[in-house]
């Protein structure tokens, strides 16, 4: 049973309703979308394997699509994320302002050391722009995050931003992954991968690489 990938990470898309999170996701996963997945017992995250630094990384991307205003529902998603996209819409000042709130929710609920990246989506709608690129850059600087303006419509920076966040998560977990390239077996990874059932956050996120 050879695995198709070396490591598995969970990424989460956060931001106001309507900023285009689901679009980003669909775009990144090339619209490999099967409607049956939705209402059956299927998968609500989408998977994609990318290679970073010679490591095959399987990323699971979770999307809160349309549930953003349900406080108790959205909180559930934070717990198992290792990387988070904070997404706003460049044509909505409000969605940009709310990033502060999303970021503080992440501080509160996501595991320590979760990696974050800021995304200004809908960059193709230049004529409706309400948030200058500099504002995005500035906010990202305040939080020490990377920043991308993307467009699901014109496929701008989609792959780049997903790859970047994956790199960041990979770096953050470097210590556990050190053995990865040399010996074929990696006990830590198995744990990272099989913890689906574990309740709450706490132990499954290693806390060695930062702070």
């Amino acid at each position, binding site marked *: 049973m050879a695995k198709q990938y070396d490591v598995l990470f969970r990424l989460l898309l956060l931001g106001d309703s309507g900023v285009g999170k689901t679009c980003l996701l669909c775009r990144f996963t090339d619209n490999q979308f099967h409607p049956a997945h939705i209402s059956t*017992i299927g998968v609500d995250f989408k998977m994609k394997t990318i290679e970073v630094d010679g490591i095959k990384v399987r990323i699971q991307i979770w999307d809160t*699509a349309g549930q953003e205003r349900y406080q108790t529902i959205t909180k559930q998603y934070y717990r198992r994320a290792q990387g988070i996209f904070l997404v706003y819409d460049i044509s909505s000042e409000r969605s940009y302002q709310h990033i502060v709130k999303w970021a503080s929710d992440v501080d509160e609920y996501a595991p320590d050391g979760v990696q974050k990246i800021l995304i200004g989506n809908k960059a193709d709608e230049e004529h409706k722009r309400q948030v200058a690129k500099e504002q995005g850059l500035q906010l990202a600087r305040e939080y020490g995050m990377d920043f991308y303006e993307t467009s699901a419509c014109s496929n701008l920076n989609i792959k780049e931003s997903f790859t970047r966040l994956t790199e960041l998560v990979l770096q953050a977990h470097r210590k556990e992954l050190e053995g990865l390239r040399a010996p074929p077996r990696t006990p830590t990874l198995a744990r990272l991968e099989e913890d689906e059932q574990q309740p709450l956050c706490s132990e499954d996120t290693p806390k060695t690489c930062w702070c």
Partner: protein
Amino acid sequence: MVDLLLCLKGCLIPIQATLVPSWQAVEKHLLLIFTNTFTTVFQYEYPFFFSDLEGNAYQNNHLLKIILAMHQFIISSFSTYLSALESKSSMLCVKICYFVRYWITEFWVMFKMDSKLSTTMEEFQELVKANGEELHCRLIDTTQINSRDWSRKLTQRVKTNTSKKRKVSLLFDHLEPEELSDHLTYLEFKSFRRISFSDYQNYIVNSCVKENPTMERSIALCNGISQWVQLMVLSRPTPQLRAEVFIKFIHVAQKLHQLQNFNTLMAVIGGLCHSSISRLKETSSCVPHDVIKVFNEMTELLSSYRNYDSYRRAYNECSNFKIPILGVHLKDLISLYEGMPDYLEDKKINIYKLYSLYNHINELIQLQEMPLPLEANMDLVHLLTLSLDLYYTEDEIYELSYAREPRSHRAAPLTPSRPPVVADWASGVAPKPDPKTISKHVQRMVDSVFKNYDHDQDGYISQEEFEKIAASFPFSFCVMAKDWEGLISRDEITAYFMRASSIYSKLGLGFKDLVKLTVLPTPSLAGIKQGC
């Protein structure tokens, strides 16, 4: 293509039997949809295809209904019709008119909701008047739209035996879990059944609740219940008392599960799972193991694991009355909408997308017709409505939680540093309330009490009612200093709450925060109350 046809065959078989045209015709019609661009279908082929039908023969055409119901996902206005009419023969005009008439008759709500559409339709009517024959005019009648009883859906009462005679205690401590679950379900169902087909559509297209008050209310109710659950637990001064409330809510959750009201169940369990509650170690040590076990089972049932797998299973096994976790189903709709392309290759419309969306929405709409299997007491409904309208921030609830059970010393250095707040979310950092602010908040709260409880508007409410009101809020244990008799004036009530504020400041809780709970700034509440 073949697959898609097969998929659709299921839904078309009933049509085969009831509809005037033959199955071949339906198939031909399907093929038309697949082989033509959407505009062509609507401009020309659609009415043409239905040329053999009389106006009333449309009625059972499920597919046509789907197309009409869902077309706004693909095209927003119907101005294309105008050009169609201008260039077609008189014979075709009749067909178009029949088609439009059917549309207006069956989907008048859509015209009401979409002003662009109805404007276009009025223009169309003008055009017909100017150029068409008399018959055409008679067929197209936009006044029909306006004459419809728009409020039918909105004012429809929840069908239940609301007995006014039965005496109930309005003190939280005296309420049985079953009473709470019944009344929460009553409120939930009332808000759920108001969400119309177009509301779902608008939500999907706009991905937000802007100008979608029914949806917004439903979400606000859900969040309100979660906060209320947290606050009721946190309002108790000792771990034992908090544990009692916690246990009570677990029992409420069990009853909600029995009622198959998953939305409120999610709100209650979500509230109990919230870290403001789960961090209360002293409290949870007072909760018996069997209750914790039930709590864990519930949490598992509602977990987001594998796209809410366990919830979906449970939900699908339920028959009769049930209330879905709306958030989960809205997510499905958004994913379907964003995930599938509007057009297939060669600009053929993706009928399967429309079909899936229609079915998902329709399933939710069907549930609204179920009879509510319980009785509601209106006093309790009013009380809950008022106390669920919460305007607490997460941070304020946290403060309350820390005030009840302070951080242990070990954990103390981990205090998360809040990021610089630049936006309007800053409300969480509440300064120590000055008397002026307190007074303002008390005044606002008293106003809302009078608005809702001073039925004869004489400036007094009865002592009995005041006690009910005071008991419904999380600071209900704050006893009155003296026994009032008979009627209570506005000033007396104000004084009571001002006094309560000083008691609270001794407890380390800003009264300002507590009063906020009861402020009812939204006009929407008036709407809710009228419907009660």
